């Protein structure tokens, strides 16, 4: 394959990937819910485009580093999952994708929820802060906060190591429970 043709194929594959992702995203707001058949076909096209993109890149630069998530985006091509359980492709994804980025939104089905949870835990704080904290994710008001509330006149002491004995714990718990019960 000549360099120009490979580039054309590459560009075509990228364009199709971009179009597919925007269709997948748009289908979430479609009336009647996600269509499984359509989502499946979209994911198949995305997989073909991704494969062609990779192979054309390989033919372009055979010694170039291939992004590791090449295997991770299996999710891109596989089942689109139950309707209404398709999480949005992450907002940070740009339409002009590179394979590394397709890995992220590709987890478009329930099976990947576990992986997502892991990612959240391992994310750096900077990433975590980008997550919008909607009302739903904030702790409800009626539950006791994790920090015990101080009575007026009390001061907070740094807990000495090893002092977390049952006794101390009990009194703290008793304090918070006292606050909880009236709330109910």
């Amino acid at each position: 394959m000549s360099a120009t043709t490979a580039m054309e194929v590459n560009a075509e594959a990228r364009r199709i990937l971009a179009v597919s992702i925007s269709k997948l995203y748009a289908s979430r707001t479609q009336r009647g819910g996600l269509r499984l058949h359509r989502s499946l076909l979209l994911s198949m096209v995305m997989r073909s485009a991704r494969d062609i993109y990779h192979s054309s890149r390989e033919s372009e630069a055979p010694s170039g580093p291939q992004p590791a998530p090449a295997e991770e985006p299996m999710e891109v091509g596989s089942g689109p999952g139950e309707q209404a359980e398709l999480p949005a492709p992450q907002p940070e994804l740009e339409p002009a994708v590179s394979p590394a980025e397709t890995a992220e939104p590709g987890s478009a089905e329930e099976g990947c929820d576990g992986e997502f949870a892991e990612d959240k835990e391992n994310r750096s704080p900077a990433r975590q802060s980008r997550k919008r904290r909607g009302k739903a994710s904030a702790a409800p008001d009626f539950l006791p906060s994790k920090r015990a509330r101080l009575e007026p006149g009390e001061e907070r002491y740094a807990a000495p190591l090893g002092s977390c004995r049952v006794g101390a714990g009990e009194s703290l718990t008793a304090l918070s429970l006292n606050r909880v019960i009236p709330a109910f």
Partner: protein
Amino acid sequence: MKCFSRYLPYLFRPPSTILSSTCHTEADIISTVEFNSSGELLATGDKGGRVVVFQREQESKSQPQRRGEYNVYSTFQSHEPEFDYLKSLEIEEKINKIKWLPQQNAAYFLLSTNDKTVKLWKISERDKRPEGYNLKDEDGRIKDPSTITSLRVPVLQPMDLMVEATARRVFSNAHTYHINSISVNSDLQTFISTDDLRVNLWNLEITDRSFNIVDIKPANMEELTEVITSAEFHPQQCHTFAYSSSKGSIRLCDMRQAALCDKHCKYFEEPEDPSTRSFFSEIISSISDVKFSHNGRYLMTRDYLTVKVWDLQMENKPLETYQVHDYLRGKLCSLYENDCIFDKFECVWNGSDSVIMTGSYNNFFRMFDRNTKRDVTLEASRENSKPRAILKPRKVCVGGKRRKDEISVDSLDFSKKILHTTWHPHENIIAVAATNNLYIFQDKVN
């Protein structure tokens, strides 16, 4: 190849449409058309959840010209939009399919379905009403029984014909995915409803339970590679049905083998031609419709570019393949971008299984004569629709030089698509749905 002409009134529209065809609401788009088994009635369903039933006029000696026109017989709201609160999903009211039950008494019965619920409707006529009660006074107030001294038996008097549609059964809560087809069994007691992953068997009398007879949902949804696109019962064998898949294959199943028909007894698939492979090979091989022939010996399937006729005795390749609009093969990328590649065209047999018909773009529809191997492209449009005019065959120009009457591929209007067509069971009468307009064409009368 017989010519097709048109009879008055040549153009039907669902009652609430605005006159101009370019200005219509989305709810008026016709989503299914179906003749009943005698051809006397024609039902259409639309995106707004309405069903309109047309009835053929009786032939009258005084007006031989007006032979068998179809007039509106009944209109009713079959499905309403619903909301699934558990999944936060709106359920569209669009009628996906209508199937008639064969007539067994004076009333007519049909099944109509949206994405989630199948309903059995009874359409019956009332042309008499009882009159002569002496239980109420002129104002309509019930009389004091002590003032009534005589017994008057009411008499049935003729009244203006009233056609009423009542929902007799509602078959709901059996489908997680979107219903794509329904099919009535030849035993006239059961029917199947099919969604993307499952086929359910119902008894027409029982609405609170159904049997799941096909389930292709994988344990891990990530491994999903194909979905069911359509299913139909065999016209004579009540134990046989076929279902088509998004991968271009058809499975024939026998319900006597096992309760769960996951193992097919026949598997029809044509190996893919590697030379035509593209990004969109999977999409265009997805089967959008499957229909048994009336004689039960053949199956017809429609994928994006072709119609195929399969012999039930030969699984490895189709008996016949017809190109519907092969000139679109080079345009698949743009058709993908404008979503047209996802259009689901239906296909239909004529009564004698000698001619097959399917729709295309630009309000074109195609007919293929299986015996003479001739085909014709016709257009459903108001400009060409003069009463009793013969439809002129159309031609799409694929090469460079365009002849006078030809239309070039680039001039085709992809927003005008004919997805739904139906053929009268005995006569050469066809109904073609073009967006919100219904065209009924009849064979030329000598």
